[in-house]
């Protein structure tokens, strides 16, 4: 019997109120007709209309999406390779340095990562813009991807790869036909993580972006520095909405798959 008491119920309720209240308030105030965020002046969608007419925001959103798609794809490829090297390739010269370089960016303060990349780009004379942001995001996101993928690879039954070799696959075929399809969910979540990190990033993008390319977080940051703005509330609401739909549907899909799998396994044992 689980010990579920009023104490647990209270902490859960208060905890989730704390986690969600600020976002709910933000969503509510995005429909406020008044420009003064603190006064409720009736329901209106005018901030959304204004947002969609704000060329600056739209341009920044396009840049952000481009950066996120490209950098998360690169990061997924590189991160998966790195994970495979770490988990499967055994010892080689400089392995310690390699795993250090994978884990260090995860704990490195963003200000330092951003600063160091900026100094590099200036040093080699690379003009700052969308390319430099992509390079920067790929680098730090690949480390996250490699952590996600390598944690899947370590629980991966090594004998599956051996079975593929035993049945006549070359090592590369074994990876393509067996390993890759099985770790695909981890690679996809790695990609999603990289994508979100890139969408989200303010600090590193601020260091590595130039006048030619501004991302949405940079725009938002410079707008909200001056105070609360209803347009940003509207933008936030849209972003929160997309994430919520995404996360909730992903969790429903995995839950349904898990239920189906459990049912299959049960009926298999009975037959």
């Amino acid at each position, binding site marked *: 019997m689980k010990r579920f008491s009023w104490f647990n119920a209270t902490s859960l309720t208060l905890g989730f109120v704390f986690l969600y209240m600020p976002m709910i308030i933000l969503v509510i105030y995005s429909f406020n007709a008044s420009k003064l965020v603190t006064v409720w002046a009736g329901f209106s969608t005018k901030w959304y209309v204004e947002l969609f007419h704000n060329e600056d925001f739209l341009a920044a959103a396009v840049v952000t999406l481009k950066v996120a798609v490209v950098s998360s794809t690169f990061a997924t490829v590189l991160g998966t390779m790195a994970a495979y090297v770490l988990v499967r390739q055994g010892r080689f010269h400089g392995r310690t340095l390699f795993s250090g370089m994978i884990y260090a960016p995860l704990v490195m303060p963003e200000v330092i990562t951003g600063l160091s990349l900026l100094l590099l780009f200036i040093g080699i004379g690379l003009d700052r813009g969308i390319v430099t942001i992509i390079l920067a995001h790929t680098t730090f996101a690949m480390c996250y991807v490699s952590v996600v993928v390598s944690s899947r690879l370590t629980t991966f*039954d090594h*004998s*599956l790869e*051996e*079975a*593929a*070799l*035993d*049945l*006549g*696959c*070359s090592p590369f*075929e074994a990876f393509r*036909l*067996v390993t890759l*399809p*099985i770790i695909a969910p981890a690679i996809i979540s790695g990609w999603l993580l990289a994508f979100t990190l890139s969408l989200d990033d303010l600090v590193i993008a601020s260091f590595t972006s130039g006048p030619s390319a501004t991302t949405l977080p940079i725009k938002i940051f410079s707008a909200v520095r001056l105070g609360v703005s209803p347009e940003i509330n509207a933008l936030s609401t849209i972003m929160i909405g997309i994430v919520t739909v995404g996360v909730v549907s992903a969790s429903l899909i995995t839950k349904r798959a898990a239920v189906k*799998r459990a049912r*299959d*396994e049960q*009926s*298999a*044992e009975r*037959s």
Partner: protein
Amino acid sequence: MASAPRSSGIKHASTAFAPWEDPDAKPLIQFKNVTKKFGDFTAIDDLTIDIYQREFFALLGPSGCGKTTLMRMLAGFENPTRGQILLGGQDIVAVPPNKRPVNMMFQSYALFPHLSVWDNIAFGLRRDKLDQDKIEERVAEMLRLTRLEQFAKRKPHQISGGQRQRVALARSLAKAPKLLLLDEPLGALDKKLRNETQFELMDIQEKTGTTFVIVTHDQEEAMTVASRVAVMDHGKMIQVDTPAGIYEAPNSVYVADFIGDVNIVEGNATVQGDRVHISFAEGADPIITAFDQPISDGQRVSYAIRPEKISVDREPLADRANHVRGKIEDIGYLGDVSTYHVRLPSGGLISALMTNSRRLARRDFTWDDEVWLSWTDTAGVLLTK
């Protein structure tokens, strides 16, 4: 009983399947002075062995004895540190696993979870670039052999453990390998299913004529399925013989103790004609036994006798060479048989096994009864190792 061809008894009839006794027979697999080290750890220690075509060869031993390493060297997943491994006379050490005519059934089955039963079985055939209809024909044959026809479209998680085991077998047999390696093939099944599957495995081995090498830690399983059993310990072969040979004529205390129940008595030997007398306790009559190895007087020896070779009676049996008096300390009732633990006056404990041919109420002995244990002079084995 559908069974792999195999000999029974210590001396083999000439018609029995026993290529290892034929000096002209060419072994399929030869290990020549193979040593495998993992860092400082020696997994296989200067091991030499021949395995013949159509054999069902069992590698038996506790975990860490090197049996899995031996098998993985055959599959090509490990390379020997020293020595040669020959398959059909050719050194295969340099051949990668995907180029060897050897297939393996993995302990975890290693079924590809994203592929159906049919695709799992076809996996190896596809690698050989066979024609589609050839593949279909062969997969159908394998499904028939393993009675999996109606599960062809299912994924591995949609079938039971026993069915998964058969898919793994079908997949590894599909390429018609010269040699099939089975790593604890029945380890994941429950006892009842395991017994059924053992006979099925022997049946399939006979039908396909493939050479099987099985790794197991379950001595009963090894005894049931194998034509020969190799008992391993610390990277060395202790004894290689038929199941009956291993059981009835163990060559060491280790083997005697590892296979089945056994009473081990230590004592000093005295040769008296064609028999050896072993005095094992002050004031007790010596044990009289036949022997087949040179023994010197006063040598310290071990004597191994199986419980079922010892008879428990009120009076000593006149036709047996050995008699010992003792008191019943414990009775283990197992239904078909009972084990009697008899305490000797010298303090030693001997277990004896009697068939319960009568119902419980009419059984002869109970706790603390004084009884006589009797056995012949050929029932036990004299061991010097």
